[in-house]
């Protein structure tokens, strides 16, 4: 079963890599000009580019050499930054990873307890507040929240930096607080909804009634229910992940953070195709990997599935 999943993921990535490769040809304009950027197009340079991208070979050969480059870490050269794409990504990946992690931790820490409370006391004031917050979180675009926080903290409450990525270490962490909170609102809204729905379903089931009738404490009952509710919550991880990818781009742009999101946006606007291709494929790989881990976690979380696996093996 695991092997089938892995094969499926690899298949999807293969298809995606073809689509991403095709981007080079789908972009309007002459392919050599696109790859040259604003370098002067003298015959030597053109010949060099044609050789580098193997433009005179059949498309399949071009694709394979491009894919080999990607797999071995040679992602081409950014025409905008005039540096290897791998270096450009390496310089910025830290700040994006830190931002996503921070936002994820904050939103889980707030949203899961809120979702559980909302489900336990459905219709109560916590539930209604949580519901209102999650509707707001889903309806307010990340950048709108970001701009509001930016305005408040720049104008009325100048205790946190609102621009750029800082000088590393604690300073960078301080710069990440507002972007992370901004991201966490939308993220938390999704997680509250997932948690609440899953918990409601679990609390209605027979084993909860039975546990209560045995006189188990409410806290213990909730923990039992949450363990089972964890399965649909983790399965919903893909939803969270796809939101996080888009949200990061928006949050980084709003606060001018030098991360992968701003790199992507600038590269797209500049039509710096090598960077866009690498980032797109990289995101696809990361998403596929996390989805796979979520699926494996699903196996670990559900004893029934685990037992089936054991019986099959």
């Amino acid at each position, binding site marked *: 079963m695991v092997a089938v999943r892995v094969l499926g993921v690899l298949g999807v990535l293969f298809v995606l890599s073809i689509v991403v490769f095709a*981007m080079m040809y789908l972009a*309007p304009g002459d392919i050599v000009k696109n790859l040259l950027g604003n370098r002067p197009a003298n015959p030597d340079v053109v010949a060099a580019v044609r050789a580098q991208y193997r433009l005179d070979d059949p498309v399949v050969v071009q694709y394979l050499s491009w894919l080999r480059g990607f797999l071995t870490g040679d992602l081409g050269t950014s025409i905008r930054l005039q540096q290897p794409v791998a270096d450009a990504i390496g310089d910025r990946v830290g700040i994006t990873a830190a931002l996503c992690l921070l936002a994820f931790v904050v939103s889980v820490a707030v949203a899961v307890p809120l979702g559980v409370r909302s489900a336990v006391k459905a219709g109560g004031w916590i539930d209604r507040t949580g519901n209102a917050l999650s509707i707001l979180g889903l309806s307010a675009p990340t950048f709108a929240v970001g*701009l509001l926080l930016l305005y408040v903290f720049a104008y009325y409450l100048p205790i946190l930096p609102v621009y750029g990525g800082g000088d590393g270490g604690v300073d960078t962490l301080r710069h990440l607080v507002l972007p992370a909170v901004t991201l966490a609102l939308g993220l938390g809204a999704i997680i509250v909804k997932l948690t609440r729905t899953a918990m409601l379903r679990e609390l209605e089931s027979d084993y909860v009634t039975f546990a209560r009738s045995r006189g188990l404490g409410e806290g213990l009952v909730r923990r039992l229910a949450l363990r089972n509710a964890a399965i649909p919550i983790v399965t919903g991880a893909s939803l969270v992940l796809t939101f996080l990818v*888009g949200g990061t781009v928006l949050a980084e742009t709003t606060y001018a953070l030098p991360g992968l999101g701003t790199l992507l946006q600038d590269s797209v606007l500049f039509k710096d195709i090598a960077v*866009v291709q690498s980032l797109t494929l990289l995101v696809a790989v990361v998403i596929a990997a996390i989805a796979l881990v979520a699926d494996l976690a699903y196996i670990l979380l559900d004893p029934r599935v685990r037992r089936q696996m054991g019986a099959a093996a």
Partner: protein
Amino acid sequence: MSDIRVIGVLPVRRRRRRLPIGVGVAMGVLALAMLAAVLGRLIFSDAMHQDILAATLPPGSDGHPLGTDELGRDILQMAVAGTASALVGPVIVAVGSMMLGVILGTLAGYERGWLDTLISRWTDLLLAVPVLLAAIVVSGVMGGGYWVTVALLIVLFSPSDIRIVRAGVLEQSARPYIEAAQMLSLSRWRVMFRHILPNVTSLVVTNMMLNVAFALVAFSSLSFLGVGVAPGTADWGRQLTDGRAIMFQNPAAVFVPALLIVAVAVCVNLVGDWIGQRLSQVGEEAR
């Protein structure tokens, strides 16, 4: 024919539920927004008119209650004129992805077999694609524009519709009335679209409403990132993006369109949730 049906339904006790205040307000806001979408461009046909002499006036200035942006365009007029562009795209996206979802979801759920496998794998694939990332990359690299964005979002939004319709159709297919319809050897199209479809409408409509809100957010996000709506168009997302440069001179340039986007999205969500609850309750009672 229709009379007989009405009599058949009558014994079900109909309780009149009062409209929750929040939902009532939300409906009012949406009605206003629709009015502005229809009339806005007619009333403020020169909202994008630039007047450098009146550039970056703060809110409360003479003749410009919300001030102007750095090109001297009136914030209020732009906001009203931008309603149409802000609403039309999301509504088309929601309706389009709903139609895709109904057709593909019904086929997958009723026909099963290889068609179901194919459609389900396709939705799995699309669900793993971050909507915003795909939209940025495609409209950025291939040269986008409003209608390319609309088409793209229809495709990217469709998997949730397909899944929801498919699940609903699967559930309905097992019921006796479908067996009865099949016994009468009605054509499969008739069974699918005349008998099953009306019973999954509540799911479809609710999801469509939620998609309007998501699409509105997606559209404005794309404008914010500089892909999507062309500069010089009256559109909330565009207005907000342009207003960032003068955010501290005239906050209204950013926060008026931002507030409008959030308000409409919240209202659509509220009304959508309410319609979903109503329709599913009506379904329960009629059963």
